[in-house]
């Protein structure tokens, strides 16, 4: 009864945000806004946790975490976001939400585990309206960008000896499209035919991730590397005439896009089984993937504290309390030349199901992206993440 209620509430929540996506005003740039691909716990810990090998880590940032799994598990993650976008003229509140990932983990007898899932790697969700040009060329330019690059994630992790965990992961980018819809409506002409151009980008390619965690007592150290990958992007360009089958002038081209080489370090310290702290750093060479782009870095610090089952409030069950902060830069090319930064703070709550069947986790994240003076816009965001992870009995 209780699980059914939770499920119904979750479904209702999904419908409440139907048709919208969690994005950023900066997302229509290059391959889109890069998602951090965090699992339920890492979301609450500010994005840290590459070195926490306790068989609960669902994040895709280190496949070596899979080596700690002992039981099959699944999870799904949904986020809702309210962001206040501000530019030099106006400001507006935008609400959006999306499912960011679903994964399953299947451990083997020999202390290894396989994971399969679908995840969003990038997200595009932006609508722009602007008046462009002068005289007879003056027009209202509209842009709606949606979608994102997704991947079929296949990973494997293995515990080697007593202290070492190793893993590999392939992000097979065969799902998800980036869709742009450009409209141009002449402002000074009464009978003009407006333009409507649709660009649909689909991808084919794979990027691999290799990771390892070494544990020494209460301390563990993670090292993750991701070689640069070249992905084939298929671009279909259609206008109103082709969309309405009036002309056959749709053009389809293939081009290469690059996902950057990435290097990450993680450090975790478990003072006891109830208190875990972690700090992570990631560097990605986005600058080599396109003109004007910036190499990016991210640092995240977080902790998780488990309440006792017999806690003073008498709630009768163990809860996970999480908190974290992070700061990262984004790769987008900007007119000012300075990189866009994103800072955020998170808190989270994990509520386990009965009989160790899994957990519901809720995370609240507050942050800010961009600078109004440097980047022409900035946004503050208020994001909540809901996830359900469960053990397959």
């Amino acid at each position, binding site marked *: 009864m209780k699980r059914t209620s939770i499920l119904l509430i979750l479904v209702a929540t999904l419908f409440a945000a139907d048709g919208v996506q969690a994005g950023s005003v900066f997302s229509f740039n290059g391959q889109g806004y890069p998602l951090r691909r965090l699992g339920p716990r890492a979301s609450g810990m500010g994005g840290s946790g590459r070195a926490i090998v306790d068989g609960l880590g669902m994040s895709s940032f280190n496949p070596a975490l899979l080596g700690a799994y002992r039981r099959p598990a699944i999870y799904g993650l949904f986020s809702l976001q309210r962001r206040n976008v501000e530019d030099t003229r106006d*400001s507006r509140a935008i609400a959006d939400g999306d499912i960011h990932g679903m994964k399953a983990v299947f451990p083997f007898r020999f202390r290894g585990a396989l994971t399969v899932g679908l995840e969003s790697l990038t997200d595009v969700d932006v609508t722009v309206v602007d008046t462009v040009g002068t005289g007879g060329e003056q027009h209202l330019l509209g842009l709606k960008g949606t979608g994102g690059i997704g991947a079929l994630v296949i990973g494997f992790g293995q515990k080697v000896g007593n202290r070492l965990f190793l893993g590999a992961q392939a992000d097979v980018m065969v799902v998800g499209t980036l869709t742009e819809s450009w409209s141009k409506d002449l402002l000074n002409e009464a*009978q003009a035919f407006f333009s409507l151009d649709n660009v649909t980008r689909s991808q084919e390619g794979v990027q691999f991730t290799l990771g390892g965690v070494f544990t020494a007592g209460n301390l563990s150290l993670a090292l993750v590397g991701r070689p640069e990958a070249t992905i084939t992007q298929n671009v279909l360009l259609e206008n109103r005439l082709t969309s309405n089958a009036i002309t056959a002038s749709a053009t389809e081209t293939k081009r290469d896009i690059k996902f950057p080489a990435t290097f990450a370090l993680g450090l975790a310290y478990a003072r006891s089984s109830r208190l875990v702290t972690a700090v992570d750093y990631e560097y990605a060479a986005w600058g080599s993937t396109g003109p004007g782009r910036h190499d990016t870095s991210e640092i995240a610090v977080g902790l998780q504290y488990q309440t006792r089952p017999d806690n003073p409030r008498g709630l009768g069950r163990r809860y996970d309390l999480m908190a974290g902060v992070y700061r990262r830069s984004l790769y987008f*090319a900007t007119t000012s030349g300075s990189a866009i930064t994103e800072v955020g703070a998170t808190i989270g709550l994990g509520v386990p199901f009965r009989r160790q069947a899994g957990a519901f986790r809720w995370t609240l994240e507050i942050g800010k992206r961009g600078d109004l003076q440097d980047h022409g816009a900035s946004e503050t965001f208020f994001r909540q993440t809901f996830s359900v992870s469960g053990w397959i009995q």
Partner: protein
Amino acid sequence: MQNVRVISIILVLSWLTTACGSTDPSPVGINLVDLAGGEVVEVSDIRPVETGTRLRELFPTVLGEADELLVGRMNGVEYVSLLQVTLTPTDFPGGDATRLEVDSVFVELKLLGNLVRGALGDVKVSLPDESWSESRAFVDTSTFSTAAFERIDLVDAVPTRVDSTIRVRLPVELLVDAIAEDPNEAVVEFALSGAEGAEFLVVAGSRDAATAGKVPQLVAYYADGTVGRTGSSLDTYFADRVATPSSGEVLLQTGVLTGATMRFDLPTIPPSATVNLVQLTMDYDFSRSFLTSLRLRIERINVVDGDTTSTIVSGNQLNEQVVAPTSSPFRMNLDQLMFHGWMSGDRDNRGLVITPVFEITSDLRYEWALFTNPRLRVVYSLPPSIGS
């Protein structure tokens, strides 16, 4: 149960705090986007590399029931009015034609709506050399070409105009011979048209004119100082094409169904570009036009294996539009799809033809518009870039 309550409260609060807002266009501008949406390009003053006149066909349009008569010569078309006046003894002073000596004879045309185009020039008076009636078609309806109507040129007369009356002197012999043939029913027939070299048009009332006092009258002056006036008993008019319009002129005309062909040297665009606007501008020659409105059909000219045809490109209403120019320059938009085909290289640019659509209406008449100096303005948008 308590856990469910806690989770429920969290989710409800989430709804209230997060799902508020909108998905309307965000206020940010295009500067945040590193892809370009494609340039919008305006190309003005594109001159035609070819213009021509296409005579489609003639229509036996105006029968004798029309309110008006056209007399004149304009844009290579001679407008010929045929009149017949039957004089009975009551039309002659004293009632006996044989006792009168005809001094002079005039025909008076009453202008409708004060309609005179151009400078009033000489009027050619001719004698119909074959029988005619108000229901006669002056066009070969099987070939839509002019059917020869024999006339004997009599004289080029200088008309005079007083207010809305145009007076043309006729040869005295017209009436004298008619009286001699039958003094009790003297029938005078003649034709009026613009003399060669003239460029004018007069629109006068016919015997069916709805407005009182607008019927053409034969005015006879006799040697004894008496005057007789008799209205026409039969009248009609027709148009005879005698020359092509001058080069560079765009004549769009019904009746003598005349269209115009044009071909422009257009800029090239990528196939995925969109032509947003094609505007044709022409100078409207009001003094040489006679027009209330024209329904125009604009078609693409195709040449296949030496055969020239024309087709409507699409269902766009711009391909058949009603124009009523009231000022100059006159502007009309054209179907951008036709131009997209040419500019993208999808079609050979053989030009377009603009043809008036002749509509059978109760107030049927010839109408035309004369334009000069055609030029195009084209606005097109390039597709968005796919790079970055």
